[in-house]
């Protein structure tokens, strides 16, 4: 069997390539990156001039990388859900969704095709921002391989935010509602993963954290903190040289996961799993054989 594009991905890319939105999006993306770059540069120059006048500006240039990366991460996290949240409800509004469901496309391939096309679109932007990123790397003195890692994390993040968007899209009738709900959903995920830890700190007296941090594996923000920490300082946010936890402070699992880079990779896997679950849920919801009421479009 030949490997083929998901038809939806191909169509979506074709359609967006023809619309002005792509051009404007690219323009906006590049503008934000450029402004971030200039701002970061200005701040760095201020810093190197201020206290220790005459100190070496190049020592600070390494901060260009996190500044630009965080800007991109934020843009990706904000844009991808918008694209996918309107994906299913948009097809429903255009009344093309039913036709799609009568073809041999399985609900899962419809849903994943939508997410994939959103990911590819955002990767165009990221690719277009590469020269600026590369500059930040070179002057900041970081290894090339980190750039690859960064792109991989962006793919992961866009997968997660894309599947959150598509899940909301599957449940909401209107695109606008889906977009709003997916942002809410986003923050709920960020918040919920901190919940066990907060409860622990409030209710336990001895300061023993147990395994209450494990949920943070699913938290993309913590993942990125860890990622940057590993990249910039070569150590984990849980402390340098293995772990600063003592076994009496945290549970067995947390203690061991905080060693080396284990947390980072495991967290990536967890986030991937979460995204996959969202995709499955969206596919389940979209399948007309599963919803007994069978929502129908409003009459013209």
């Amino acid at each position, binding site marked *: 069997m030949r490997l083929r594009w998901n038809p939806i991905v191909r169509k979506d890319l074709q359609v967006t390539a023809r619309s002005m939105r792509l051009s404007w999006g690219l323009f906006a993306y590049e503008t934000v990156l450029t402004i971030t770059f200039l701002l970061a540069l200005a701040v760095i120059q201020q810093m190197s001039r201020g206290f220790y006048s005459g100190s070496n500006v190049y020592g600070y240039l390494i901060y260009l990388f996190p500044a630009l990366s965080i800007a991109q991460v934020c843009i990706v996290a904000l844009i991808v859900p918008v694209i996918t949240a309107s994906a299913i409800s948009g097809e429903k509004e255009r009344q093309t969704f039913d036709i799609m469901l009568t*073809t041999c496309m399985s609900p899962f391939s419809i849903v994943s095709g939508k997410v994939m096309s959103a990911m590819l679109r955002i990767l165009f932007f990221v690719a277009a921002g590469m020269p600026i990123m590369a500059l930040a790397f070179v002057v900041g003195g970081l290894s090339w391989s980190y750039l690859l890692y960064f792109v991989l994390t962006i793919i992961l993040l866009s997968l997660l935010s894309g599947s959150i968007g598509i899940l909301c899209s599957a449940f909401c009738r209107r695109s606008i509602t889906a977009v709003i709900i997916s942002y809410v959903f986003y923050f709920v995920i960020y918040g919920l993963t901190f919940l066990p830890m907060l409860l622990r700190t409030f209710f336990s007296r001895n300061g023993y954290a147990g395994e209450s941090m494990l949920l943070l594996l699913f938290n993309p923000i913590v993942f990125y903190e860890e990622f940057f920490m590993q990249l910039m300082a070569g150590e984990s946010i849980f402390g340098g040289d293995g772990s600063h936890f003592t076994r009496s402070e945290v549970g067995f699992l947390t203690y061991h996961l905080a060693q080396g880079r284990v947390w980072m990779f495991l967290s990536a896997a967890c986030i991937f799993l979460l995204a996959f679950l969202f995709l499955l849920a969206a596919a389940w919801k979209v399948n007309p054989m599963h919803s007994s*009421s069978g929502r129908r479009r409003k009459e013209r």
Partner: protein
Amino acid sequence: MLYINDLTKNYGSFTAVNHLSLHIPEGDLFGFVGPNGAGKTTTIRIVCGLLRASGGSVRIGSTAAAVGSRAMKRMIGYVPDFFGVYDNLKVREYMDLYGSMYGMYSRDIAKLTDDLLELVNLSDKKEVYVDTLSRGMKQRLCVARALLHNPSLLILDEPNSGLDPRARVEMKELLKNLHSMGKTIVISSHILSELSEMCNSIGIMNHGQLITAGKIEDIMQQVAGGKRMHIQVASGMESAVRIMKEQAGARIESVRENEIIILFGGADEEISALIGRMIQEQVVLTGFYREEGSLESLFMQLTGGGEQ
């Protein structure tokens, strides 16, 4: 070909389709008629796997494929009662998109697209953006799209809604054409006159129930009260009216200055005898004609005259 057995669909406490059983033989051009809200679209959507039935079963051909399964979807071409378009997609690409959704290869789709566009008379629109087509063209494109995977059953939900008379004629020709090519076709519609010209069998539905179904001639036979006849009379109106009143099986519908309209279910011999009697009694006839039994009148009778 299509076997619907005891199909039921409830929306909450409302029953949209109520124990519907129907068999459509292979090669039929079947007209599915009913007033607004009768449950036609609901039935069709269940058959196409877009809606889960509350009860009953649907089967196509001799296969045991379940509704909504891939095997079933391959056998059905569905033209919905709306037309969804993407902006920025050309006719050729539109066909390619749906072809690839059936797992076909672009090269094969391209070949098929040429043939199908020729069939629906859109060959010259191949490179045109879909959203710029006229309604009639979109509808025909939709038919071409539904034929891409060579389904054995083509289901059209109100293919004529929103089309002008010319586009309707074109659509009708297209469907007749497809029928002669051996496709089994199901059309839902309110426009009965068109169905009676085109279909060879019909089913009438109301309030979610199938009232009657069968060959169109058989159904016409059922037009109760017989056929409507217009008799133009120049003089001798009184005797004409008297004869009509005496005639068994005839019912006077209206009497105007020089025309009597009667409903008469008699056979051809009885009709000629009736005319003979009028001539004998010095009634001067200037005209006589028999209305074709119309599907409309049948429809009105069966559905109790309109919407629920």
